[in-house]
């Protein structure tokens, strides 16, 4: 186990924290994607994809903080700025189910 962690570059308490946070984000992304697949309505999928954007922002933020690099910060800006366009478009044209 410890050899595997060392091989992954996990060598200190900070790295363990990062690993735990990354695993939590992975679980969160899995839950959100499951809801997006299950639905049952288009609005459920839109809400789930909005939550997925939040998970992505957290993941990119985690990466930027750990590596102390500013390379991924423009991605955060783009996600925050245009993430709502899809939701608004879908909500605008959501129609009643024709059964």
């Amino acid at each position, binding site marked *: 186990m410890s050899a595997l962690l060392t091989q992954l570059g996990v060598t200190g308490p900070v790295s363990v924290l990062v690993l735990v946070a990354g695993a939590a984000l992975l679980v969160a992304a899995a839950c959100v994607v499951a809801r997006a697949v299950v639905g049952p309505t288009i609005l459920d999928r839109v809400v789930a994809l909005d*939550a997925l954007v939040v998970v992505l922002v957290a993941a990119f933020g985690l990466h930027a903080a750990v590596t102390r690099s500013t390379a991924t910060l423009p991605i955060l800006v783009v996600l925050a700025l245009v993430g709502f366009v899809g939701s608004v478009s879908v909500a605008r044209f959501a129609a009643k189910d024709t059964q």
Partner: protein
Amino acid sequence: MSAVGAVLDVLAAVCLGIGVLLAVVAALGVLRLPDVLTRLHAAAKPQALGVVLVAVGVGLAVRTPAAVGVVTLVVVFQLTTAPVAAHMVGRAAYRTGKVRHDLLLVDELSELTGGEAPEGGLPEGCVVRADEDGDRSDEPGSARAPG
């Protein structure tokens, strides 16, 4: 300086940790809650607070003026756009009858339109739209008959 840096690192880790935790809680809520409005309720919290915490954490960890400026932009954009999306999705859910009325304690939107909402939602969502925002009545949504 290094002591200050260590304190800032710990603060950054705490902010990022809480932000990640909020994202996880939102994901569980989106997966587990019963209808569109409750899932929206769960998903909208970290869209504001979680992103703010992650941005503060990144700013504290990277500690360059450029990074602080960029994460400030992220917070401003997110706080501007996330409520718009949530509002539109919630109104669309009500208009198209995706709301489970048996789960509602108070239905103020139905009271605004005068009377109880029928089973499939409001027949005319545009009545409320014209009441609350008259100058946008020329939009296609107000003229479109639901369904």
